[in-house]
C-alpha cells in the first residue's frame, strides 16, 4: 500500500482552494510564484501555527501532479503523521490521502489567513478582492523576513 501511496505510483488527486482566498491567490501568483508554491507555503505556515480553516466553498483547484519535488510530499507526510501520532499502519489504508489531505488544505487556508493578517495587512482589499499592485514585490521580502524572524 505504501508503494501505492508513494508519489508517482498512486493516482493523483485534486487540491482545492476556497472561494474566500482564491482571489488573493490569483493576484499574488504569476509565472514565477505559482499557485502550488503559495499553497505549500500557506500550508506550512498554517501547520506551524496550528491554524486550520475549513473550506466553506471550493473554488480553485489544481492537480497534485504539479508537485514534482519528493521533499514536499515528505513534509506533507510529516504533517499528516504528526496528526495521526505516527501510526504508519494508516498508510496501508487506500483512502489515506483522501482522508488526511483535507487537513492540509485547511492548514493552507489558515496559513493564508495568517499571511493576510500579519504580512499583507492593508494591501489587500477583501471587498474588492484586489491587491495593491506595488506590494507584490514587497510581499516576497516580507514573507522571507517573517519566516527568518520567526523560525529560521
Amino acid at each position: 500500500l505504501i508503494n501505492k501511496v508513494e508519489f508517482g505510483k498512486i493516482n493523483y488527486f485534486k487540491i482545492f482552494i476556497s472561494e474566500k482566498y482564491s482571489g488573493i491567490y490569483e493576484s499574488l501568483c504569476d509565472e514565477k510564484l505559482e499557485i502550488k508554491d503559495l499553497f505549500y507555503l500557506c500550508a506550512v505556515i498554517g501547520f506551524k501555527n496550528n491554524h486550520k480553516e475549513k473550506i466553506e466553498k471550493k473554488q480553485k483547484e489544481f492537480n497534485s501532479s504539479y508537485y514534482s519535488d519528493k521533499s514536499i510530499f515528505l513534509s506533507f507526510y510529516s504533517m499528516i503523521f504528526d496528526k495521526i501520532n505516527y501510526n504508519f499502519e494508516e498508510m496501508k489504508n487506500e483512502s489515506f490521502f483522501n482522508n488526511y489531505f483535507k487537513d492540509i488544505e485547511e492548514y493552507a487556508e489558515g496559513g493564508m489567513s495568517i499571511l493576510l493578517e500579519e504580512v499583507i495587512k492593508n494591501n489587500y482589499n477583501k471587498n474588492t478582492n484586489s491587491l495593491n499592485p506595488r506590494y507584490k514585490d514587497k510581499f516576497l521580502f516580507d514573507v522571507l523576513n517573517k519566516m527568518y524572524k520567526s523560525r529560521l
Partner: protein
Amino acid sequence: MNTDDIFSFKTFNQNKKIFKDNDLSNFKNIKKINLVYFLKNNKVSIRSISSIIKEYKNYFILNNFQIDYDFIKYQKVSSFPILNNSDKDLLIYNNIKDKYIFEVEKKYLFLFLPSKYLPENCKDNFNNLNKKNVFGINSLKNYKNLYNYTINNKYKSDDDFFSINFFKDSNIRLKIDLIEDIINYLKDKNINFYDYISINYYYYINYLKDNFDNLYFIFEENTNGSTLKNIGNKLNLSRERIRQIINKNILRSMKFKNFKLLILTLVKNSEPYHKYIIDLNSLKDKLDINIVKTIKYILNIESYDFKNNVFFTDKFKNLIKKVYIDFNLFFYDKERFINDNFYLKEKIDDFLINYIFLYYDYTKINDYFYCNSNFTKKSFIEYVVKNDFKLGYKNNKSNFNILKNLLSEKYFDILKLKKTNITFRSLSSSFDNSKYLVLSDRGTYTHIDNVYISKNLLNEIKEYLYNYFKINDIMPTYKLFEMFKEKLFNYSNCLNKYSLYGILKYYFSNDFKFKEGAFITSSSYNNDTILEKFEEICYKNFDSSFNFKDIRKLSYFEKYKIDNFIERSKKIIRYDKYDYINIRDLNLKNVDIIIKKIELEIEKNIKNKEYELEKNYITKELNYIELKLVENIKAKENLNTLKILKEQKNKIDKRLNDLKNESLEYIKGKNITLLLLDKIERCYEEIKILKKEDKIQNYSIELIDELLENKKCICGNPIHKNSESYNKLLELKNNYSESDYKRFYEDFYINLKILKESKKSKKDRISKILKNINESKDDREKILIQIETLEEKLSNLSSEKLSNLDNSENTLKSLKKDLINNEAGIQNLEKEMKILKIKKTDLLNEIEKLEKEEKEIKNLSIKKKYLNNFLKTINEIKDNYIQKVRTTLSEESTNMTKKLINEKDKNLIDSIKINDKYEISLNSQGHDFLANLSAGQKHLVSLSFIYALAKIANENNEENTLSIPLIMDTPFGRLSSEHRKSIIENVPQFCSQWILLVTDTELEDKTKSIIKNTNYFGKYYEINKKNEYISIIENKTNLFGGNYFD
C-alpha cells in the same frame, strides 16, 4: 460736391434694378458718386452701369472709366460725376483726379469721351447747359471738318460744340496736332487753352510714355493668344479693364506692331540698303494695307510696289543719304558706305535701326520699342556711349572715345575731331540745345551757346584785341575775321565772320563793348552813348520821381531818338523777368521738397534713438538670458546628478530584482520544507524504530533479483537452484512487499540529510539576502529622496524650458551679432545724418539765396511794370506832341493861306487839315474843298504849309523868322497878279532870306514894281544859257534896282 453726396449712394439698393427704377429721385440729387464704392457695394460691373447710366437722358454722364489712358490708375480712380443740369458754367470731367476737375471746373468744359456717349443722347441735354463754354472731343476722323464747322458757324445746332474722339484711329502726333488746333481755335476766342486743359493733356501724354511698357505688353500678349485674365493677373488689372484697353485699339493706334515689323525687315535684309530698297517679301503674309500705310508714314515713302512688295523711292534714298550725311561721324565716306559690304552687314544694321528710331523719336530698350519724344540726338549719343555702341568703321574706337570725351567734358580739341572725320555739322546738330559748345556751321550767331573755339585761338584773339584797342577806338569785325581767317579755317570750313562775331560776343562781352560789325572800347563816345546815359538816368529815377520834361528836352523833335530809346528799353524788357520768377518759384518748390525729404530722412535718422533703445533692450535681454543661462548650468548639473542617481537607482533596482528572484526560490519548495525539519526528523525517528523492530528489511529487491539471476552469493559462492539459499532468496523476494517502509525510510533519510546539510548555508544566505534587501532598500529610499528633491527643483524648469534655454543660447549668439551690426548701422546712419545735415544747411542757404534773388526779381518785375508804364507815357507824349505839332501846323497854314488868298476867296476856306500821313486837306463848310481850288490857290496852300513848317521849326527863334533860306522855283507861273502881290508882300516877313528862281515871263513889270516896293529886295542875278555846255550868271542888281526896272 459734398462727401455726403458720395455716401448718400448707400441709400441705393444693391439690386441695380431697384437702382434703376425706384431711386431715381435720389439719383437726381447726387452730383457725384464714388465709383469704386458703388461697384463694390452694388456688385455691378462697369459695363452694366454705363448702360444704365446711358439711359438717363436727363443727365449728362461722363464715365471716366471709359478712358483708356487712366487704366493703370483705375484702381485709384476716385469717382465719376453724374451731372444734372447744374448752374455751373463748366461741366467737365476728364477722368482724372478730383482736384484736376475742380481746377478745370471754372469756365469751360472739355469732354474726352468715346463718341457713342456723346452725340445722340447728350446733344439735347447740352441745350440745357450753358453750352457756350462746352467743348467735347469726340471723333478724330472728322475733327477738322468740325473745326471748320465751328469756325464758319456752320455747326449751328450745337453752336460752340465739336467733338473729337481721342481713342479711335488716332496716334499721338495727330492728337498733338488736334490739341494745337483746339488751342488755336480757342486763341481766336481769347481763351487760354492751357489754363484749363493743360494738366490733363500733359497727364495724358505722360501717361502714354510711362505706361507704354504695359500697353505694349498687353498688346503682345493678346496677339499671342493668352487670355484676358492672365494678362490682367500679370498687371494687377481686372479682366474687364484689359478687354476695354484692347477693344479701344489704343495699342493698334500706336502702330507699334507695324513699326516693329518694319524694323524686323530692316534687320533681316541688310542688302536692300545697298540698293536703297526695302524688300518686304518676307512679310508677305503679314503685310496688309495698314502696315504699308504705316511704313509709308514712317519713311515718308509714297510709292509702293504691291506686286513685288517692295518699296523703292527716291525719298528713301534721300533718307539713307541723310543718315549718311548727318552721321558721317560714323560713316567715313560715301564710297565706303556703298561699296564695303562687310561694313554694311556688320555695322549699318544696328546703326540704322537706332538711327531710324532716333529720327522718329523712338528708342529701343529691352527688345521693345518705345516712343520717346524727348529722345534727342544728344541723348542718342549718350545712349550709344552707354551701350558701348561700336561706331564708325573699322577704326571706330577713336571716334567712340572722342564722343565719350565730348559728353564728359565741356571742351575738346577740335583738331582731334578733324582726324576722326566728324564734321561740325553733325556735331552742331547733335548738340543743339545742349550745354556743349559746338561750332555752328550755319554762320549764324543765334546759337551762340553752340559756338566752339579752341582756347589757344581765343587767347590769341584776345591779345590782339587788347593791343589793337590801345591805338584805335573801333575795331571792325571783318578786319579781325580777315586776320584770323586762315587760322579759323584750319578748324572748320564753315566759319565765317558772323560766327566769329558770335564767338567774340560770347567770349569778350565782359571786356569789350560791341556793336554789330564793330568792337568798341569803353572810352569811345558817339551818339549812342548819350542814350545809354539816358537809360541810366531812367533806370535810376523812373520808379519814383522821373521828370518827363527831361525826356522831352532830350528828344525834342528827334523822333528817331525816341524810337531808338523805345527799342532799347524794349530790349531791356525783353529780358523777361516774369518767366524767370516762375522758374525760380519752381526751383524754390523743388528745394522745399528736397528739404522736406531731407527732414524726413533726418527723422528717419532720429530712429537712431530707437536703435539705441533697441540696443539697450537687447543688452537687457542679454543680461537676462545670461542669468538664465547660469540657472541653466545649475539645472544641468542637477540633471546630471539626477541621471547618476537614477542610474544608481536602476542598479539597486536590478539588485533588488535579483534578490527578489532569489528570495522567491527561498519561499518555494525544498526551502520551505526546512520549516518542517523537526517534524520530518520525528518521522524519521519513528520509522527508525520500526526498522529496529525489523519491520523494515535491510535488503533491496534489486539485490535479491541480482543474486537470483547470477546464482552467486554476496560472498562469491555460487547459489544453486533449489538450494536452501536459493529458496530463501525466493522467499525474501516473495515477501518483499511486506517491507514497504524501507524506501520510505530511505527517502526520509536522504532528504533529511540534505536538509540538514543545507540548513546552515541557506540560513546564512537568507540572512544575507535580507540584509542586502534592507540595505538596498535603504539606499533606494535615500536615492529616491534625492531624486525627489532634485525633481522638485527641476520641476520649476520644465523640459520645454530647458530646451528653450538651449535655443536661447543660440539666440544669444545671434543677438550679440545683431548688436555689433546695430552699432555699425548706427555709426553709418550717424554719418549719413551728418551729411544730410550739411546738405540741409546748404539747401537752406540756397533757399536764402533764392529768396534774395526772388526779392530782387520782384523788384525787377516792379521796375518792369514801371518801365512799361513809362514807355506808354512816352508814347503818349510822343503822340500828343505830334498831334500838337499837326494842329499848330494846320492853324498856321490856314492863317497864312487866308493872308495870301484873295479877299473874295477867304470865306471859302475854313481850315487846312493835316492827317497822319501829313497829307493836306482843305475844309470848307464841312466839305473837302481841295479839288475845287485852282492851281494857283493850291500853290498858295502849299506855300502856306511850307511856311507853317518853317515857322514851327523855328519856334524857339526870338525873331520869329526862318533862319534858313527859303528857295522857290518858278512860284508865280500859275498865280494871278493879286496872289503874286500878296506872296511877295507876306513871305519876306517870316523869312530871313528868300531866293526866287523866276522865268522872264513871270517877272513882269508889275511884279518888279511890287518887289521894289517891299524894300526886302537884295540881289538880282540873271542866268543865260549860251550853248549846251555854258551858261552865264550875271549880277544885275544895279540894273534891277535902278535902270532896269525903270
